[in-house]
């Protein structure tokens, strides 16, 4: 048999099978290496990440009022709750909640509730920020798309939404300023 011309039948590993496997492996690695930067290019770019936190001045928000701010392209509800609303959120037994969470676990300062204003059902923005809006049966927010009712702690109480409104990462940078994200 000529050198390298065909199978080295003695050890049962044909040379061509080996070459085919090596070639296929290298093609696989190569395709993966090429695909990587293409897929990575679709992830958020540096300028998008640079804008991923928002500073909010909460001094002008009077008790009982709320503001909506943009954070990462989404609305965030900042609400200055009245003592009655806080009281209401804290007296309800956890067993009545579809997604049990205490009000204390969802706020840093008792009166200030900060939640992402996106209904956890299918992504609509619930009503309840303006004094004239319907706030649902529990005095928080009401999503008009499919009828989800949130309470004064932003927790789901009634309707198809599966989870409470998300609490974003935030910190009080002073008594009247918060940094979201």
């Amino acid at each position, binding site marked *: 048999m*000529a050198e390298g011309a065909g199978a080295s039948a003695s050890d049962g590993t044909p040379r061509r099978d080996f070459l085919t496997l090596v070639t296929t492996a290298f093609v696989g690695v190569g395709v993966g290496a090429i695909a990587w*930067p293409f897929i990575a*290019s679709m992830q958020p*770019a540096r300028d998008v990440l640079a804008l991923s936190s928002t500073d909010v001045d909460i001094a002008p928000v009077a008790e009982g009022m709320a503001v909506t701010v943009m954070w990462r392209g989404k609305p965030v509800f900042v609400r200055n709750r009245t003592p009655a609303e806080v009281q209401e959120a804290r007296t309800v037994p956890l067993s009545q909640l579809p997604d049990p969470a205490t009000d204390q676990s969802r706020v840093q300062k008792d009166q200030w509730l900060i939640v992402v204003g996106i209904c956890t059902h299918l992504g609509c923005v619930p009503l309840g920020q303006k004094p004239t809006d319907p706030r649902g049966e529990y005095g928080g927010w009401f999503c008009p798309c499919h009828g989800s009712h949130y309470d004064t702690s932003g927790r789901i109480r009634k309707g198809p939404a599966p989870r409470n409104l998300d609490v974003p990462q935030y910190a009080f940078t002073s008594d009247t300023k918060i940094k979201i994200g």
Partner: protein
Amino acid sequence: MAIGLHDSDFKNPVIRWVDQRMPIFTMMQKEYGTFPTPRNFNYFWNFGALAMVNLMIMIATGIFLAMHYTPHTSYAFDSVERIMRDVNFGWLIRYVHMNGASMFFIVVFIHIWRGMYYGSYKAPRELLWMLGVVIFLLMMATAFMGYVLPWGQMSFWGATVITNLFSAFPFVGDWIVTLLWGGFSVDNPTLNRFFSLHYLLPFVIVGVVFLHVVALHITGSNNPLGVEPKGPQDTLPFHPYYTAKDSFGLVIYFIVFAGFVFFAPNFLGHPDNYIPADPLVTPAHIVPEWYFLPFYAILRAVPDKLGGVLLMFGSILVLFVLPWLDGSPVRSMRFRPVARIAFLLWTVCFFVLMYCGGMPAEEPYVTVSRIATAYYFGYFLVILPLLARLEKPLPLPESIARAVLGGGGPMPAGAAAKPMDKA
């Protein structure tokens, strides 16, 4: 086998089930597996496959760039800079796309040169050749519009100069230019439509490439001897012989490509295109991209607006009738001692034009351009038709196998199946 099903040779039940209903596996096996290919290809025959790969690279990188690009005069330049600085691997994707255009023209120029040297345009491959010229024209249009998109100074003034070419045509010229611009100068409507067309044309190229390949698979490939294969002794199955040879060429191509992308990404570009477009200031020395320089030199060689434009377009359109200008039945220049020299001189003229096109429009470049332009057309319109009558070609080999293997008659039947024993 049920009536209406294709008679498939595949044993794997899933492949067989599909193949019986839509015989793409049979077709691939026939066209890229066992396809009989002349056994004597040299590396010039890699460039068709390289061009195909290059087209796919351009489409892939282009689609991803379009996800980040904004076709508006106020944002285009900044969006390209954002791709370079902020988008993950944006620099890589853009540099691959940018240098990919240059690589595409390098590959295609060599591919066309190969066809001209080895007479691949001659009967029965005239339509195959003409489809190739169509692809080349589409490539030039696509590359031109792509160069406008970054909206730098060269983008803007290149677009202005090239669109103004059409104003040379009598009566309809101004109407055409206004139509191209969508306004009264190169502006936002122009940029928008160029982006749209720059996205469209590559897919038109894919369609014409498909026709190009269909025509190729009817006539079969030409080869360095220009002698048609006469039987199985003259051919090899495409796979594994030419898949392997093309793969090797592809690796070399990737090395050159990567050399540009990683070590000299702006070597073939022009620094002025990193200055945002300014309709009030023309750069002192505007030049098109390097691959348009020979044709730009022809344009400038003619001291008449319409004449220059016609000659420039004519320098490519003449390729359409090349199969009929060259009446010699001998394809390969290897057997045409006079035409060979004439063609190599033409090649020199092409590079001379490329050089002059990048130089200022002053002496001695203008005179040199004129001489080179005269020879460029003289080769096609005078020398080739005359040589078809006057030249005495060298004797052609009896067959490919005979020329390759030296001596001996035609190989016995089935010889090509085990070529390793005889090489």
